């Protein structure tokens, strides 16, 4: 066993047993057969997960009236164009998507860097004030957002930042849960890796970006997905902080389609909701490719 393997394991891995049978490596015919039952289970779970999503997509292609007919329509209809056209008239999809992409993109990148640096400090250094600072940063996670809205609004007002991209991006860069996740994940990383580099005289930033980041790729990818998701769906703060229609992000724009019961066009809202999931899906597909195991083993040997 490599040293990395033992130190990655912070707890006793159960009773050590004597080496016996050779480890089965590579796909055997038996494993190929075994893949099917699990695949079927996962397919079933996926079915349950996405059935509601399927309904969303179908509804996006249906008129407002058809969405509420009984029994529910199960096949796509012909109103996708109408719904998107209406959406385009009312909220200007291009501009709104661009706003959302810009805000969420910057917030995700910034949030990742902030969380990586802070998580690294908390996980791999021991310094005065460590626990206190961690608690302070975590406090924003436990205080409900609703009570912070009014003071934050007042503050942004006095900064003269309302109705700007900064107002949306800046307060969302220091994300306590991201720092927490980085810290937890980094604490599972073997120190030997870092020490070796430090002995070679590498600076902390080189250690961080040369060694830690490559190994943390799966976690950074997951975190990137979450940060983007959080920012992408963020609604209340942008609603409060924005003044002009030009600045609207997608959720704020979709909310404008809701009126009194009588005047809400659900066809367009659901079409907009369906469209808003597309960038998330693309991002997920791109980033999930980082979920590859063995990064750690490779890093130790190299």
């Amino acid at each position, binding site marked *: 066993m490599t040293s990395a393997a033992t130190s990655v394991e912070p707890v006793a891995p159960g009773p050590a047993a004597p080496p016996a049978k050779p*480890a089965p490596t590579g796909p055997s015919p038996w494993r190929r057969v075994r*893949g099917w039952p699990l*695949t079927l289970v996962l397919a079933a779970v996926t079915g349950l997960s996405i059935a509601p999503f399927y309904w969303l997509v179908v509804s996006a292609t249906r008129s407002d009236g058809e969405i509420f007919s009984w029994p529910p329509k199960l096949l796509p209809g012909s109103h996708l164009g109408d719904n998107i056209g209406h959406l385009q008239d009312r909220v200007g999809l291009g501009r709104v998507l661009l706003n959302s992409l810009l805000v969420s993109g910057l917030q995700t990148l910034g949030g990742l*860097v902030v969380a990586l*640096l802070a998580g690294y400090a908390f996980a791999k250094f021991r310094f005065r004030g460590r626990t206190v600072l961690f608690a302070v940063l975590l406090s924003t996670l436990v205080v409900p957002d*609703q*009570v912070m809205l009014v003071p934050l609004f007042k503050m942004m007002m006095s900064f003269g930042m309302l109705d700007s991209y900064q107002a949306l991006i800046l307060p969302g860069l*220091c994300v306590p849960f991201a720092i927490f996740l980085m810290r937890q994940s980094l604490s599972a990383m073997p120190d030997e890796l870092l020490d070796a580099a430090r002995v070679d005289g590498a600076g902390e930033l080189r250690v961080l970006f040369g060694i830690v980041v490559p190994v943390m790729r799966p976690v950074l990818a997951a975190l990137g997905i979450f940060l983007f998701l959080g920012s992408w*769906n963020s609604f209340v703060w942008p609603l409060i902080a924005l003044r002009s229609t030009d600045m609207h992000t997608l959720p704020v724009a979709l909310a404008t389609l809701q009126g009194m019961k009588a005047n809400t066009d*659900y066809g367009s809202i659901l079409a907009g909701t369906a469209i808003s999931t597309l960038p998330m899906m693309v991002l997920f597909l791109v980033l999930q490719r980082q979920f590859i195991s063995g990064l750690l083993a490779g890093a130790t040997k190299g």
Partner: protein
Amino acid sequence: MTAAAPPVTRPAAPAAVRPAAVRRARLRRRAVPYLLLAPALILFGVFKAYPIISSMLLSLTAGSGSVTHSAGLSNYQRLLHDPLFWTALGNTARILVVQVPVMLALALLLAVGLNAAFVRWRTVWRLGVFMPTVTGLVATGILFSFLLNTKDGAVNNLLDSIGLPTVDWFGDGFWARMAVVLVLTWHYTGYNAVIYLAGLQGIPKELYEAAMVDGAGPVRRFRSVTLPALRPVLLFTVVLSTIGTLQLFDEPYVLTRGGPDNATLTVSMYLYDNGFRYFDFGYASAIAYALTLLVSVLGAAQMRLMGERE
């Protein structure tokens, strides 16, 4: 540990280096964690400190809207005698106790499945499991009001067709809470599965190989390799889900708005009502900080419990 200490893992300094250089290097090293933390701390100081402190002070005022006066701890006393607050707390606790364990167990199993090399078309299943997380709230609300419709919703039709009694999802307090649990689980299982999936990548293959050499079966390998190695991440999800559920707002807001007869009223919804419906921001802040205290204590307890098991 006393004074600002060197990193946890003190690299053995080569003996040949002169003391002055060592001291300088050590000083630089001491500054490193603070420099790393600087962006987070500055952002916190500028954008979070004031709202937190200000809302905390607000919880010490009474009156409503713009007509307020200092009230000491009276909001907190009122809280202790407010039956609706306790109802909300009870509901939240009941949802928490069922929902968090079920969801996390499911997410963990899913993640292991989605990570297995021999599963076909993994990317498809991964995306599928993640999809509910990205479905917007308005859509979720409409959708589940269809699915859980008491009279002819899809779920009741299914129960009926397999000979089970149908359920009054939104009319009965217990089932309304179950409906919230169901939707929460649908919404967030994939989210947690992705965290686990990322965590699984950090477990060296060697550990599994060694366990297999020892003759451990899949269940044994899961228990003695996967679980211990995932512990930091498990702790993270337990704490996060607990906080998330204690602050539960969105799902009951779109599904039940706290009904029937307050059976799904959560602390966060009650907080919102007091602030944004009744304009009593002082009381709303008191509810928020009572919740904060509770979340902090529970979170600390969880960390303690899960840290101690070693």
